[in-house]
């Protein structure tokens, strides 16, 4: 994913990762995990060169996607999710939050679960929001340009 593009400028290390990509995999789907993840994402987006307001938009939208995983993906117990953030050459940022849960399936679809103000915020903050149901879980993909 992403990787290093020629001409994308100096690579800044964040925890051993390049500045144009942040991958946090196997994050415990628990409310207490969200503040440190927000902090890492805020740091990464700032290092990637985003203006402060855009950093906060991205952090809030991602927080809502992660909160939905915490609230809905694992009704029967513990689980985890992956967060990937990639900054393209044009400055476009793509954030994906992938879980491996069932979202109360078949009672509640991801669209139904991602309801209310959380989804309203994600759609208002991101340029584009896609929710994909996978065999293994659900992936929310948000684009910021």
């Amino acid at each position, binding site marked *: 994913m992403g990787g290093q593009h020629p001409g994308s400028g100096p690579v800044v290390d964040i925890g051993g990762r390049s500045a144009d990509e942040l991958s946090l995999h196997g994050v415990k789907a628990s*409310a*207490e995990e*969200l*503040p440190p993840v*927000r902090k890492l994402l805020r740091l990464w987006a700032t290092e990637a060169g985003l203006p402060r*307001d855009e950093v*906060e938009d991205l*952090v*809030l939208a991602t*927080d*809502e996607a992660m*909160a939905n995983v*915490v*609230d809905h993906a694992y009704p029967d117990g513990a689980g985890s999710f992956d967060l990937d953030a990639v900054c393209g050459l044009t400055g476009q940022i793509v954030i994906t939050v992938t879980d491996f849960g069932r979202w109360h399936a078949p009672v509640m679809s991801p669209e139904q679960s991602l309801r*209310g*103000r*959380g989804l*309203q*915020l994600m759609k*208002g*903050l991101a340029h584009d929001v896609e929710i994909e149901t996978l065999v293994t879980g659900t992936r929310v993909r948000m684009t910021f340009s």
Partner: protein
Amino acid sequence: MTETDQPMPVVPDDGELLRVFQEERDAAVVLRAVGEVDMVTSLLLAEHLTRVEAEIVPPAPILLDLTAVTFLDSAGLTVLVDHHQRCADLGSALQIVADHRAVLRTLELTGLDALLTVFPRVPEAQG
């Protein structure tokens, strides 16, 4: 301004993420939140609001000063909406104080700026 002597309970390890201070202004109560309001710390904010609602003498308002809140998500919005209604039911009013993007943009995007009462600053004490 003194920190309320309420415990910082509910969820362990929320550390310094959110702190809530209380101040009396005439009959009104000012709750000043400092930090981030998310799905963990919104529980703490709700506890403080519930406690003050039990003490307030209507029609005196509760002022919730969010000017030092740097992050507010939908869990926090739910607390604001719930307690806006509770205060109205009591004959009091929840007055939110905010003048910055972290709060105002979130309220605008969800349309809650039309429901909630928002002031740019805490009014000066009378007399």
